[in-house]
């Protein structure tokens, strides 16, 4: 009989979960363990990213449990006509030639599609590694049997992500391999970002001012337009998952690449723009005006927000610690950072925070205890907390938050300026937390 054998657990102290950044380990401040999933869904997954390739069709081969998340991602995007699946059942683990199952399944799907897709993004799963499925043979046969269709060798194999390429990295590399070798143009492209770079992107402006055409993988209207990325002389990337892809493109298509890390530091931004200008053979840009605008916007935000505690989470930007440093330098009161791990790229910012702001609380987002920790209740009136990111908003239970993932695709001084405006808006106008954090793939199509 299931009898309670211990007293009811009391409320958990916050100290059971968080750690002051001054005492946090690097790069893994929290022990590995069971994982909880907070109900904040704005981040992009591999289906969202794959849908950025126009006229491409995605096929997943996996069990119902794995399939459920990806098929409903496509459904919520309203793009089921670009998604198919081959569902693995128990007997397929022992009594099935899985290579033939994939070949026959793909052929059946292609035969029944109203139009032949230009490309197929094929996603086997963890189980195919364990089955020893000969995917080289599968892809060779697929290309032989279906000429005119490009096959991207993707994978949904999270079991390998701690020691191998993650599914997100592999997907971007596979997408990059769809690009043909074309005569190079004075053209740069953003590669591997989920969110389209806005027109005011500092690097875009620099490129255009110097006569470069700019394309964006996240903004292609047709497959032919996507293939034109193969004519770029330079690939720009901000999403760290894109590195294996741009390395591969340099090898295969001799395309140079340039990393625009999503730093929130004025000097670092200026340095990167100088380096980019040098790479382009262009004159060094004058950043004075853009820098002043960013400083002014931050000043206005600070005047309003004052010492209101600020919480930041890792989904808001690829560089949450860099953002914390920026806000602290400008007089904001950052009190909490939600990040399960620290990116090695952020070590300098981490050490800086340890040295100068050692009492900032570092929180995980996946620790089981978070499920039982009560979320704060705020009195009406001035915001008790401002959150940057969905997870920070959820855990802080604050309706005053900037709802954004991956930095909104912004970069540079213009990103700082826009952020300051967003912070002012979030401080002034509360949002419904549940309604705003439930939608998947923020910034992409959604029926919700």
């Amino acid at each position, binding site marked *: *009989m*299931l009898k*309670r054998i*211990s007293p009811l*657990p009391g409320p958990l102290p916050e100290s*059971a979960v968080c750690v002051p950044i001054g005492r946090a380990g690097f790069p893994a401040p929290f022990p*590995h*363990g*069971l*994982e*909880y*999933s907070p*109900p904040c869904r704005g981040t992009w997954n591999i289906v969202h990213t794959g849908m950025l390739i126009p006229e491409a069709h995605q096929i997943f081969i*996996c*069990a*119902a*449990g*794995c*399939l*459920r*998340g990806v*098929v*409903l991602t496509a*459904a*919520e995007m309203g793009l*089921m006509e670009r*998604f*198919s*699946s*081959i*569902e*693995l059942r*128990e007997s*397929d683990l022992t009594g099935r030639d899985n290579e033939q*199952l994939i070949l*026959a*399944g793909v052929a*059946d*799907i292609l035969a*029944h*599609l109203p139009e032949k897709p230009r490309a197929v993004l094929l996603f086997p799963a*963890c*189980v195919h*590694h*364990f089955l020893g499925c000969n995917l080289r043979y599968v892809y060779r046969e697929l290309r032989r049997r279906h000429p005119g269709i490009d096959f991207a060798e993707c994978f949904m194999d*999270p*079991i*390998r*992500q*701690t*020691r191998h390429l993650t599914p997100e990295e592999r997907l971007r590399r596979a997408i990059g391999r769809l690009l043909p070798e074309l005569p190079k143009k004075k053209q740069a492209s953003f590669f591997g970002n989920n969110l389209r770079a806005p027109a005011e992107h500092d690097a875009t402006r620099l490129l255009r001012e110097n006569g470069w055409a700019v394309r964006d993988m996240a903004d292609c209207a047709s497959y032919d337009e996507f293939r034109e990325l193969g004519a770029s002389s330079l690939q720009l990337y901000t999403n760290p998952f894109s590195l294996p892809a741009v390395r591969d493109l340099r090898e295969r298509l001799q395309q140079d690449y340039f990393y625009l890390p999503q730093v929130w530091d004025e000097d670092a931004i200026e340095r990167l723009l100088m380096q980019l200008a040098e790479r382009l053979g262009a004159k060094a840009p004058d950043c004075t005006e853009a820098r002043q605008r960013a400083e002014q916007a931050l000043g206005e935000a600070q005047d309003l927000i004052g010492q209101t505690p600020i919480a930041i989470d890792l989904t808001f930007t690829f560089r949450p610690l860099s953002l914390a440093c920026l806000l602290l330098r400008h007089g904001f009161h950052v009190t909490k950072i939600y990040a399960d791990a620290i990116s090695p790229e952020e070590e300098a910012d981490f050490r800086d925070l340890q040295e100068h702001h050692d009492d900032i609380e570092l929180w995980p987002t996946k620790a*089981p*205890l978070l*499920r*039982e920790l009560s979320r704060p209740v705020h009195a009406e009136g001035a915001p008790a907390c401002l959150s940057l990111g969905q997870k920070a908003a959820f855990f802080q239970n604050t309706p005053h938050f900037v709802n954004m993932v991956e930095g909104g695709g912004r970069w540079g001084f213009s990103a700082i300026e826009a952020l300051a405006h967003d912070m002012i808006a979030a401080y002034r106008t509360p949002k419904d937390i*549940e309604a705003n954090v*439930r939608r*998947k793939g923020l910034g992409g199509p959604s*029926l*919700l």
Partner: protein
Amino acid sequence: MKHVSRILSTYSADTFGVCSALYELGGMIVIHDPSGCNSTYTTHDEPRWFAEPSQIFVSALTEQDAILGNDSRLITDITAAAKELQPRFICLIPSQIAHMIATDCRAICRILEKKTGIPAFTLPTNSMHYYERGIFFALQKLAEITCQALPESAAPTHLPEAKWLSEEELHKLRQKKGKALRVNVLGATPLDFAMNGSIDSMRHWLEARGCHLASCWAMGSDLDTILASHEADLDLVLSYGGLGAARVLRERAGIPYRIGIPFPHCASARGDAACPPEGPAYIIGETVFAESLSRALEAAIGLPFTAIVPMETDDELLLPGTLCLTDEDELSPVLREAALIIADPLYQPICPAGAAFLSLPHIAFSGRLYEEHIPNLIEADCFADFTKKILGKFQQNRV
């Protein structure tokens, strides 16, 4: 081709069925899987996740631990979390890889019990079956635990026959008993019943017929209520997921069971459907739901409806004429002949243009996408609106 979906969704998995069934009972449920399962379940299949805490976690199995058979990390992680959170029980459920490498979850549960003092059990899931099977196993296990303390002599020598729910028979049983019948409702989860008030309606329906809802497995009843429910007079099976528990309670505690969902039975719309449609009318859904609705609509409209069950079921639940069709390839030719199809909106792309389609969203298929549009058909008003829509569809098709 079997296994292949060109455009259809997939039903929720057995692991998620377990989570949904045990969600409100104060236990800790650990899906033994690399990643993503937890997020999928809590995003698409669990409408309670934002507001009502429950301890559902994923083990984050790595390739190295899988290949080397390193279960010690799993045991350490669950032990650490359980000691902090003090759940009423621990349920460890394998996903596909754990199943494939034959992780000995029963042995792990025995170790967990010793280390934590908390009851621990596993269920035979593998993410390769649909949700109803997970609900079935979870509720069956609860029934076994509920009956654990009963003496062998409590087991009946003659097993009462299982029947479909009938209002007349319920009335007779109530009269025979002389006081309120205590009824357990088995097989209720948001995957089939959404959060649209269906369970409250069920309670009112029972109360209006002199019955008392002793427990609901497992929405709205806590673990202690469920563990005490072996004293009930009758079990009502609302879905295939409740059938295993009903059988255990019948065999061990002598509680008879009836099958069915009490949709209103009225003949109010019969006159409006004088001209029968040219082709069959189908309802696609969970066995008991689709069959109960078929019977209710037949009574209301006076035309035959056929249930199509695309997931796990049991012969005992299948009424004559019910079709069990799972794959897109099996469904498409049958639907081609249909005059009317009542199904989740994600089925519409495979329905022929000539057939009328009436949307009836099902969380177990389309997740949260249409959850706000799921009608509570146990309520008479709602059911009447639904029948009007059906008649409207028939009339449109005739025009």
